[in-house]
């Protein structure tokens, strides 16, 4: 049984944890139709005409914020961006008060990026507007996982049965959590790899094989997804130096050779070249890193469209 087009109407998107495999399939299918819009001479459809979407970003973000904004504009929504530095947060207002004030202006959706895990859950209890989680702390980044899945499906034609290796700072990564949840729901064989200092406790229970061996993770993989290593992690003694990290865990052409011949290389960005990934790999023929960015717009259009009730009466 597949999810009906109205399955997501009126809901929040707080995490992949709340979605069924059918609902994920629906979003990905809808994104295919949306992707076609970007190829038209006039890249705009009226689906969200008269809807107001607020992009509320409490953390710096270029890619995700721009991607949402482009998606909203292509759907003809009225959008506005609020960045933390210019908001009243600096005056000591609480998150709830800020959002209740925004809500008094009757937005239909709020796209939220926040440094605290669960920030979206907190707001979903007090807001009428639908909340789309654009990354909450170390918890989830659902639209990233959806665009990753879309990109994999586009290249491989499927998700089930693929070996996906995810390598990098697993501990602090919301992209990791959303991807493990999504890919395991869709039947992929997920391998997560990091130094032991950067592996969250109990990750296996989320649906991933866990290893500290890059070779084991990559061997025979259909997809190799690298995660960003934040430069400040050295100070926490998670690893001794960027140089050593790259030598032991970085993705080099030699290590890529262990993957399947047709394996694709992914990265959610921003990349640290020469830390988690060598430039030859990032810019190589197997890299789909920029496709991920392109697909991000289509996937976010699909999410916005479906949550807004698009497809009613189909």
């Amino acid at each position, binding site marked *: 049984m597949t999810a009906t087009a109205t399955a997501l109407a009126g809901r929040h998107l707080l995490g992949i944890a709340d979605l069924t495999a059918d609902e994920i399939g629906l979003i990905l299918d809808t994104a295919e139709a949306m992707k076609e819009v970007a190829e038209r001479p006039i890249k705009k459809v009226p689906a969200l005409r008269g809807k107001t979407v607020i992009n509320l970003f409490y953390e710096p973000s270029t890619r995700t914020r721009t991607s949402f904004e482009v998606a909203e504009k292509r759907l003809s929504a009225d959008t506005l961006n609020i960045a933390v530095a210019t908001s009243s947060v600096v005056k000591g207002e609480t998150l*709830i008060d800020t959002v209740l004030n925004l809500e008094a202006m009757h937005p239909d959706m709020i796209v939220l990026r926040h440094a*605290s895990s669960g920030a979206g859950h907190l707001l979903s209890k007090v807001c009428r507007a639908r909340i789309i989680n654009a990354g909450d702390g170390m918890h989830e980044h659902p639209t990233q996982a959806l665009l990753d899945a879309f990109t994999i499906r586009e290249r491989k034609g499927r998700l089930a049965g693929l070996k996906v290796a995810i390598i990098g700072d697993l501990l602090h990564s919301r992209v990791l959590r959303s991807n493990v949840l999504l890919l395991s729901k869709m039947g992929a064989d997920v391998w997560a790899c990091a130094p032991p200092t950067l592996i969250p406790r109990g990750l296996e229970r989320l649906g991933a094989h866990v290893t500290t061996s890059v070779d084991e993770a990559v061997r025979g993989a259909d997809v190799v997804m690298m995660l960003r290593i934040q430069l400040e992690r050295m100070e926490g003694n998670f690893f001794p130096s960027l140089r050593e990290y790259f030598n032991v865990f970085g993705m080099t052409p030699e290590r890529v050779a262990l993957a399947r011949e047709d394996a694709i290389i992914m990265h959610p960005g921003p990349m640290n070249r020469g830390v988690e990934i060598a430039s030859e790999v990032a810019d190589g023929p197997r890299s789909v890193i920029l496709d991920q960015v392109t697909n991000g717009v289509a996937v976010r259009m699909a999410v916005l469209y479906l949550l807004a009730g698009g497809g009613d009466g189909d």
Partner: protein
Amino acid sequence: MEILLTGGRLVDPANGIDGPCDLRIVDGLVAEVGEGLAARGATVREVPAGTIVCPGLIDMHVHLREPGQEHKETIASGVAAAVAGGFTAVACMPNTEPVNDHAGITQLIVARAQEAGLARVYPIGAVSRGSKGELLAELGELKAAGCVAVSDDGRPVATALLMRRALEYASVFGMPVIDHCEDPTLKGDGVAHEGFHASRLGLRGLPAAAEEIMVERDIVLAGLTGGAVHIAHMSARGSLRAVRAGKARGIRVTAEVTPHHFALTDERLEGYDTNVKMNPPLREEADRAAMVEGIADGSVDVIATDHAPHHYDEKNVEFDRAPFGIVGLETAVPLVLDRLVHPGTITLARAVELLSVNPARILGVAGGSLSAGAPADITILAPDLETTVDPARFRSKSRNTPFGGWRLKGGVAATIVGGVVKYVNPDVVGADALKW
């Protein structure tokens, strides 16, 4: 004034009593205990059917927030919550503003408690000035002003050397050192028990090892010095192992467990309710089960609430920004009766040991028994009362509890301090007869 309490089952483990027994109160003291006592001019009061008369319960770990944080709790509201929860006495932690590291602050607390006139309040003084972990506070002055123990609660006694000195020096005054055990470097900026649920929810972890390491340190130092250490709010199974081993070696170590650590696990983190954020955090099932086992087998000495009131506004924020702690005074008795006594894990007599006998012994305060001559501090329990936890009815100024809406079997019928009835539960049939 002479009162004869009749018709109750008296549970007084310190005197080996568990059965039908009358109790005569004269001038605020227990005068006589026995079956079928004659009125001899006393006012006779029959306790409600099915209730238990026991020595007054003592919560040896509460935060009354006064002075300095009266928006969370005051001494008056805190002791009102105490008697409503069946506690005739509480020991309050020194992490007020300013810290209770000085006799003047202790005297203020004692005076406010006397004005409130409900539960007895035993202040706990700071180990170090400002609880900063550097210089010892004037423990002798604190003792003289009314402190019964010392602690830097909210944080651990900072260094092994300071702990050693505190254990040595406090022993002069017969005061135990109560420690909030947690290695600060391992704690880091954690907000929830390091385990599957914190990982899934993206919450920074507080490993059980942070507690266990400090418990081990304290026990070694208690052994070295001969001082008495009391482990506050123990939550990790490794800590229990250390306490058991320490006791077996004859070291003076005692430990308390909170109701939330025997009733809840870190599964409750799902949904990011800030009322399940406390420190130590809710741990995993193996830890919870170990705490219950320790409570049953005697390794755990005390059940204490770590009553930590916080204002609604302070808790109504992102999970990682909310302060640690929950209120506990008004839910402890129902949780002990429902979760431990009714399932048969412990007897009522053992519950009274954990909630009255042992806290009185560890702190060296009156109470813990109903011997003739003891103050008439009495709690009357209604073990079969069906209760629903309703935070709106709390006497505490704060409502930060994860137990709202819980239906529990067991409650308090009345609380008597110094022979004076301080609380009667209107939900208990026949309890009105206790008002005098």
